[in-house]
């Protein structure tokens, strides 16, 4: 779960990392009031989970409350890079002397945390790592022993002396966020040095481990600030992994790897997936029915591919779930169904006997992908 900038900054403040004074606004009026409260000149920042806000007009310097209002109004109306925008962050404007970078993330290849501090900030850090690797100090932190002073000395070793302790404190705060809030990534870009010598987090990127949300109800609640797509909401409520994509073939499968592979096969067959939907292991008839409803509710869908390899999942239940859903919704597109594995024969028999006109059985995964792609392309061409 990726937090908004303003949510990340609230966590930062809680753990002693200095951040600019700022106020979240959900409308132009509120943005105007916020700028007034901050004393006039301000920065209005769109709150979306996307990079490149600076270049894309998502961060606007304003000199007055009126300008703040106008900027917020435009952001909330236009959205950002195709995303809906619910809120902006209005922050004090600060005199910046220098930009740095600091981050800690869980490095999956070592199973330890990797902290990074760069003497340059406000840039694409992966680009910087390629072009001037010596600008970035890296240090692994083993969770067994936690953060030690030598880690901080090493990380801040390339900075001027007067900045080392200040940046070290920020890194220590980031580590605290990481460990106490179950984050997998905390990033500050840029970490700024003000002309008066203070060091502040000007941005905040925080990713929380979804699996750990059960012990952080207060973070789970932050989701309520996110714009909600009703389809995605329904899928999430049903425990389905659903991601909306840009193509025309609705995809339902069991297991992330199998679904990804199905997406690839559909692409190879000349069409693109409208979504990724993993019903998970041991799916019930009900979960299958909900999945089909979710996928069919997307108007871009021109055909659906149901690809099930039964392990814990029983293909007879899948067949029943499909027929159940078809009683509730009247699909206008064909549903290609491929069943293999546990009780596949029985599942195929159930579908055959039901003889639903919109269901197209397929023998193999490859065939299913080909047929679904053809159907979608034919539908789209009409």
């Amino acid at each position: 779960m990726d937090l908004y900038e303003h949510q990340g900054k609230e966590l930062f403040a809680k753990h002693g990392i200095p951040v600019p004074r700022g106020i979240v606004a959900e409308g132009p009026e509120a943005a105007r009031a916020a700028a007034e409260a901050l004393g006039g000149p301000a920065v209005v920042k769109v709150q979306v989970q996307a990079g490149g806000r600076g270049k894309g007009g998502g961060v606007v310097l304003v000199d007055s409350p009126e300008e703040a209002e106008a900027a917020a109004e435009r952001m909330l109306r236009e959205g950002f890079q195709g995303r809906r925008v619910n809120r902006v962050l209005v922050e004090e404007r600060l005199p910046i002397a220098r930009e740095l970078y600091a981050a800690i993330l869980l490095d999956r290849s070592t199973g330890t945390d990797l902290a990074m501090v760069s003497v340059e900030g406000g840039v694409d850090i992966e680009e910087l790592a390629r072009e001037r690797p010596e600008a970035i100090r890296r240090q692994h932190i083993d969770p067994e022993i936690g953060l030690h002073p030598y880690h901080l000395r090493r990380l801040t070793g390339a900075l001027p002396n007067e900045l080392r302790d200040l940046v070290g404190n920020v890194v220590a705060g980031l580590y605290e966020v990481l460990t106490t809030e179950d984050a997998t990534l905390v990033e500050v870009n840029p970490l700024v040095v003000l002309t008066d010598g203070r060091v502040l987090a000007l941005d905040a990127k925080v990713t929380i481990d979804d699996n750990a949300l059960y012990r952080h109800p207060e973070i789970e609640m932050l989701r309520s600030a996110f714009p909600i797509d009703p389809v995605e909401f329904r899928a999430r409520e049903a425990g389905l992994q659903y991601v909306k994509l840009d193509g025309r073939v609705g995809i339902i499968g069991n297991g992330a790897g199998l679904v990804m592979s199905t997406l690839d096969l559909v692409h190879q067959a000349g069409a693109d997936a409208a979504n990724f939907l993993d019903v998970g292991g041991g799916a019930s008839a009900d979960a299958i029915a909900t999945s089909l409803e979710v996928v069919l509710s997307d108007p871009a869908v021109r055909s659906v591919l149901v690809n099930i390899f039964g392990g814990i999942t029983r293909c007879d239940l899948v067949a029943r779930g499909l027929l159940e859903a078809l009683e509730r919704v009247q699909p206008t597109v064909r549903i290609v169904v491929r069943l293999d594995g546990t009780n596949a024969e029985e599942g195929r028999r159930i579908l055959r006997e039901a003889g639903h006109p919109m269901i197209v059985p397929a023998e193999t995964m490859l065939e299913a992908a080909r047929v679904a792609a053809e159907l979608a392309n034919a539908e789209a061409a009409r």
Partner: protein
Amino acid sequence: MTILVDEGTRVVVSGITGREGRFHALRNRAYGTQVVAGVTPGKAGQDVEGIPVFDTIADAVEATGANTSLIFVPPRFATEAIYEAADAELPLIVCITEGIPVRDMARVASYLRGKPSVLVGPNCPGVISPGRANVGIIPGEICIPGRVGLVSRSGTLTYQIVHELTQRGIGQSTCVGMGGDPVHGVGFLEALEAFEADPGTDLVVMIGEIGGDDEERAAAYIAERMTKPVVGYIAGFTAPPGKRMGHAGAIVTGSRGTAQAKAEALEGAGVRVGRTPTEVADLVAAALP
């Protein structure tokens, strides 16, 4: 010959009185696996269709000589069960549980380093050596004994590929589901190393996906050390960057960890990479002696 599990495997199931634990313990036993004990705190003395239940793994080991832990307990108790199995010095721990917080797993990984226990998983389908032992949830009926080793980050995709092999009459020595979590036990490297050393394995299939750099590191290992042929598959060529695709691991950041980059790394190491599960099976058939 096989890796990790065989006829000598004696399984103790943590969470055996839960719905899933019970179902798969019995299923594994029905396959022929020696499922000798279960563990559920407070239910010592009971049994699950003849499998005795104990209070701790150590008690179970003492009473039954179990040598393999199979874990089905819910995520918030799963790392506890792994620690318990490691402290009981079980050589193999297979953790099926999905949804363990990754920082908890990082601590587990750190604890296991330098210990004799080998962990498979978590969030994995387990390990099967067809005809000998099945420890986990891989459907035994899609496998046949043979000389192809298989290791995979994905569950049902593994079934798909095993299925295609079996349809062509190509049997498997051992199939290892390493699981899709960012921090896990046995990875491609360890499995490849074990298959390379296993006289019962002639060829290895590795099934990867987007995210992380397990495949890239495996490619480096293959180039340097493997003498047996390797056939690969990568899922997620069409996954858009920055999107999470179900598996916690399956998320792409920038150009790193893309399916394209992984496939190229593997091909650079001499691995034949199939573009579909079917092509993978064809490549295996062609490469086998």
